[in-house]
């Protein structure tokens, strides 16, 4: 039997294309245009060629921000993914407590980023914040506005508090999809708890965990609001992550050319890493994992 091919359905994606063009493609094209020009405002532009790219490539400021960003993403992934899995493994699988846990786990995800930042900014303050005050009362010298390690610990703990739930919920969904037959077979074989996790739960969760890693990596790599509200990029530049530095450059200093070159390189790194993740994910799917 011959299949009827009708490509008119492609027109159905037209609204999305128009929306993406307006919200992403045209602004991105404008950034490319800015990156090769200089401006002093008033919508007057002067050709600068590759000058901004060359300047940014030799700028310690960008490389330092990139290093901090990679470190931040690596730390939060190393904490959130295992922690999320542990939480999911310990959640009740059914009944009212399961629903209760799901609601509680979703709560941090519902809070807007700037509110999370404000909560932690106050929470960590030594004079009025519960955390800062308690630590001071215990004799621990903690001050996220002056101490680099304290600032880093604060923004990492904040991110873990905000986003571990996402990993846990995804891992929980992965665990719920495992048929009982697998566990019954494991019981017949007298498999240990570790072996059940290693050979049944982990492989079955690998798909959703990959999505969790991808989502958390991309989000943490583009993070702006929460650390900005808590530390403002300080003390010094200690928590100035890529997007904080970019905003400082583009809006604070109005260096549109260098900021455009910076953001294009930032975009390329994100694009490359997303592609690697996407390729790995789709290949895992094809292998049936």
């Amino acid at each position, binding site marked *: 039997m011959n299949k009827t091919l009708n490509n008119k359905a492609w027109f159905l994606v037209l609204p999305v294309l128009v929306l993406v063009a307006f919200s992403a493609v045209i602004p991105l094209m404008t950034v490319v245009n800015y990156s*090769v*020009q200089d401006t002093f405002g008033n*919508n007057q532009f002067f050709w600068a*060629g590759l000058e901004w790219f060359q300047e940014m490539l030799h700028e310690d400021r960008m490389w330092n921000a990139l290093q901090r960003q990679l470190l931040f993403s690596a730390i939060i992934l190393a904490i959130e993914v295992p922690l999320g899995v542990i939480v999911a493994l310990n959640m009740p699988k059914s009944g009212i407590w399961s629903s209760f846990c799901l609601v509680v786990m979703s709560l941090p995800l519902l809070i807007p980023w700037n509110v999370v930042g404000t909560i932690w900014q106050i929470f960590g303050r030594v004079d009025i914040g519960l955390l800062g005050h308690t630590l001071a009362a215990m004799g621990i010298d903690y001050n996220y506005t002056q101490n680099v390690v304290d600032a880093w610990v604060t923004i990492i703990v904040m991110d873990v508090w905000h986003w571990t739930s996402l990993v846990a919920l995804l891992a929980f969904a992965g665990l719920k999809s495992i048929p009982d037959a697998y566990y019954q077979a494991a019981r017949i074989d007298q498999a240990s708890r570790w072996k059940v996790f290693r050979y049944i739960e982990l492989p079955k969760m690998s798909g959703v965990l990959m999505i969790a890693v991808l989502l958390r990596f991309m989000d943490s790599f583009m993070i702006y609001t929460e650390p900005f509200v808590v530390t403002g990029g300080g003390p010094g530049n200690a928590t100035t992550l890529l997007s904080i530095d970019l905003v400082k450059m583009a809006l604070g200093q109005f260096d549109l050319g260098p900021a455009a070159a910076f953001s294009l390189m930032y975009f390329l790194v994100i694009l490359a890493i997303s*592609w690697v993740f996407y390729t790995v994910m789709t290949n895992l799917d094809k292998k049936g994992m």
Partner: protein
Amino acid sequence: MAWMAWTWPTAIFFMVIAALLAIFTILAIKFPETPRRGVLRIETTRGDRLFITLLGSAFINLAWLGIMGPGTQPWALAVCLAYAAAVFRWV
């Protein structure tokens, strides 16, 4: 369109990319293909290979600019062409 601060070089850059996308779309319709596995051990179509080429070319150009300076940038394009040929042959 003045607010977008267009220049001829950036306009040509986007026109080339748009033309490449159009050509590859027509190729995909006229000559449907099955994905293949190359040196990266992943399944790729012509479109995937074009994406790998364009993304890699961006990094090649940046690396060239960072290491060699702006005077010899056209040579980076020559490297990109060799890279593109390699991607389409072996990936």
